[in-house]
């Protein structure tokens, strides 16, 4: 329904374009150079007058109509239904909506609700017809206005370019709004959370068990929201990941940029970067079904107690995932070191590895540190691997063979499934999200700053 209106609107705009262009030729008189702009700009001018106001009205109307209809339907309900508590009223409204869309509802509807359903359908139809009429009238009025305004002196190109410019500027603000949206939404929910749980307990508490009691006499569900075990778990897994990724990534970057033949480099580098393109859910599957049982078997063979969801498995696989980040970022950094520094070292008789260790690495160190920081922030925010391969219980431990949980795992477990939105449990997820955002933001800012400073040094 709405889709067809959209198509009609597009067709009208198109005809507006041709009408405007034709009109421009007509008003130009004997020669086209009498016009201020090219004829196509007059066409676009008319098309914009036709499409833009109608489209804006269309969007606003389509967004508001459903809630308006519900408002009207509720107002027309018999008083005994209208005076129900908001929760129950909500159920009634849901029933009505389900009946309208032809779904099955739980109870047999009574006459009042059936009447409301009819009323709803009626309003919907009236609303849609009105929408069609108003939007099409506006579109045609727009064409008429644009068509009448066309004269050789009309600065059509400038007008059209103004609109395009406005679109460009609006687009570029989307990024700002996204950041703002993230900060505000996470901050707002976190504030609600900190209203229920004191911020000091959240930041420094050593216990994490987000099950809050439904009844007062329940046991074992005290609800503790201390994020320390979560962050230590995150750091443990990220630490293991870095122990895997930094040596392998750095050494392969060094080998590929200093030793490897161009041919080997050309094939090995993209092959290594395949690791960066594999979806994280695949790594998670690999960690949970292949690496974790393997580690447990090895551990049992050595007589060690290994949890089936050990931090080691998740960390190792995460490390594999991060190798290409470390290697390609350090590769850039190593290539930025001027050749003259290498040549100077060779001239003094140093071997290649001595040059790398004594000249190249110290010179590239800030950049490498920056790239490692970026990789750490990546590891901290990584979700799927840990959701699939790490544990759920919050252990405060540094033993990589035990199961630990991470911030991202907790966010996912708290927010998947049905939840009411005012419990401390759900809100806690947003507080954790806020912490995650802050930590990764700080890491990124430092890393980007270091890398940029370092680049400037050699430019």
């Amino acid at each position, binding site marked *: 329904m709405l889709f067809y209106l959209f198509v009609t609107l597009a067709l009208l705009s198109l005809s507006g374009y041709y009408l405007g262009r034709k009109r421009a030729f007509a008003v130009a008189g004997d020669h086209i150079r009498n016009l201020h702009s090219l004829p196509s700009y007059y066409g676009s001018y008319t098309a914009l007058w036709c499409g833009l106001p109608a489209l804006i009205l269309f969007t606003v109307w389509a967004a508001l109509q459903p809630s308006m209809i519900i408002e009207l339907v509720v107002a027309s309900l018999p008083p005994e239904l209208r005076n129900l508590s908001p929760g129950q009223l909500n159920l009634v409204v849901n029933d009505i909506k389900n009946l309208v869309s032809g779904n099955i509802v739980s109870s047999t509807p009574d006459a009042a609700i059936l009447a409301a359903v009819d009323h709803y359908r009626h309003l919907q139809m009236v609303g849609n017809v009105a929408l069609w009429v108003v939007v099409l009238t506006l579109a045609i009025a727009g064409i008429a206005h644009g068509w009448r305004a066309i004269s050789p002196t009309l600065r059509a190109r400038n007008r059209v370019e103004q609109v395009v410019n406005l679109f460009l500027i609006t687009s570029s603000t989307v990024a700002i709004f996204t950041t703002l949206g993230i900060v505000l*939404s*996470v901050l707002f929910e976190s504030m609600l959370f900190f209203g229920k749980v004191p911020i000091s307990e959240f930041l420094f508490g050593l216990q994490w068990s987000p099950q809050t009691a439904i009844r007062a006499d329940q046991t074992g569900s005290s609800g503790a929201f201390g994020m320390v075990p979560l962050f230590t778990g995150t750091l443990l897994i990220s630490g293991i990941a870095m122990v895997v990724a930094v040596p392998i990534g750095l050494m392969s970057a060094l080998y590929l940029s200093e030793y490897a033949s161009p041919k080997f480099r050309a094939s090995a580098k993209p092959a290594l970067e395949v690791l960066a393109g594999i979806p994280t859910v695949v790594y998670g599957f690999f960690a949970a079904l292949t690496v974790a049982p393997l580690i447990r078997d090895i551990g049992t063979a050595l007589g060690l107690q290994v949890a089936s969801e050990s931090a080691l498995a998740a960390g190792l696989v995460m490390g594999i995932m991060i190798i290409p980040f470390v290697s390609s970022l350090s590769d850039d950094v190593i290539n930025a070191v001027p050749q003259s520094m290498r040549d100077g070292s060779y001239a003094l008789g140093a071997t290649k590895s001595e040059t790398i260790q004594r000249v190249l690495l110290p010179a590239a160190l800030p950049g490498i540190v920056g790239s490692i920081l970026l990789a750490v922030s*990546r590891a901290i925010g990584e979700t799927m691997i840990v959701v699939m391969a790490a544990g759920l219980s919050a252990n405060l431990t540094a033993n990589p063979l035990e199961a630990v949980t991470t911030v991202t795992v907790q966010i996912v477990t708290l927010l998947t499934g049905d939840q009411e939105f005012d419990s401390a449990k759900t809100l806690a997820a947003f507080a954790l999200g806020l912490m995650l955002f802050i930590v990764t933001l700080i890491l990124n800012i430092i890393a980007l700053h270091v890398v940029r400073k370092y680049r400037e040094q050699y430019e």
Partner: protein
Amino acid sequence: MNKSTPPAPTRDIKVIVNAGLQRRHAAERRFRAYGLLAVTLGLAFVVLMFANIIGKGYPAFWQTYIELPVTFDPAVIDPEGHRDPKALENADYAVLVRASLRKLFPQVEGRRDLRELYQLVSSNAPFRLRSEVLNNPALIGAEQPIWVLASANVDTFVKGNIDRTLDESLRPLKDQEIVWIDQLQASGQINQRFNTILFSNGDSREPEQAGIRGALMGSFYTLLVTFLLTFPIGVATAVYLEEFAPKNRWTDIIEVNINNLAAVPSIVFGLLGLAVFINFFGLPRSAPLVGGLVLSLMTLPVIIIAGRAALTSVPPSIREAALGMGASKLQMVGHHVLPLAMPGMLTGSIIGMARALGESAPLLMIGMVAFIVDIPKGLMDPATVLPVQIYLWADLPERAFVERTSAAIMVLLAFMIVMNGLAIILRKRFERRW
């Protein structure tokens, strides 16, 4: 002419250098070997992962079927004899399936044993018979061999993934079931065919009936929204920042913002989607529209950054020539710079789309993890996406689901390879060196 020759220090240095040379060269070789080892390890991981997943997943592309000698008994299907389609549709075809299984193994008796016997075939076998009858009502009264889907345990056993030497209590199939399967295999009444169900069905609790069609359609709709939103907005932002924006504090803020957004963990975008799109705007949970919106915000920075790189690679002489011919700034961009930068922008967008295709964490937040059997038909239908389907299946304990998960991963990876390959071809084909 007594020139005293100065003492020859060169000899000493040579000695010192030569003394350490062997050690230094050994260190050099060692260092080199470490480097090679690191590269090999990295490559080994790539090979290992692919081998692991392909090894686990390729059997899922075949599915076991059992041939049943079905008697289409008119007394069961159409007792009144009207051939009324409605009656045909509602008849109890399970009776026929059970009867034909009993006919295959007349020696089986007792409720318990019979129940086990009936479990050899999938629970969708009656539906198979029904569609056979509805397509060809002449079958009623005839006896005809029909191939029906075997149950997941039979399928796993036939593929050799259940160890028959294991104790009976440790494996999902009982001894007598194995005897029946062996018998069927001996008489050629079990075979394996290409698994079309995997590509034509939605999710299911029964592994042998579960497919990825629903998830693929969900991914398609989600990516459609993402592409329709990110491509125009991303290109417009890149053009504005690169060609029009004045150098001032405001544009600086935008730039810093974009760079930071590119590094925000994806799960935070999921929180944003939950709080803003679902709770504030009241959009439906699990809908591809919301998923697409969230993924758009996530991929936008990637596309903007790629787009700006493509724009900067267009030489300024092109711009100057256009302006010199009297073009307006927008004409200069629209007619010359943008078409030249388009291949680079498309490459960046495809890579961004490939990333969005593989992303699952933010979608968990907005409810795209539900168990959804129906194949979504629009932007508002509840749906899931391929990576989330993989996540859901990976949690299930049945061996048959492990196989399907790996197969789904292979499909996902195939899409990634195609998309990235397309990007590479595009870059190779249209890249211009100025």
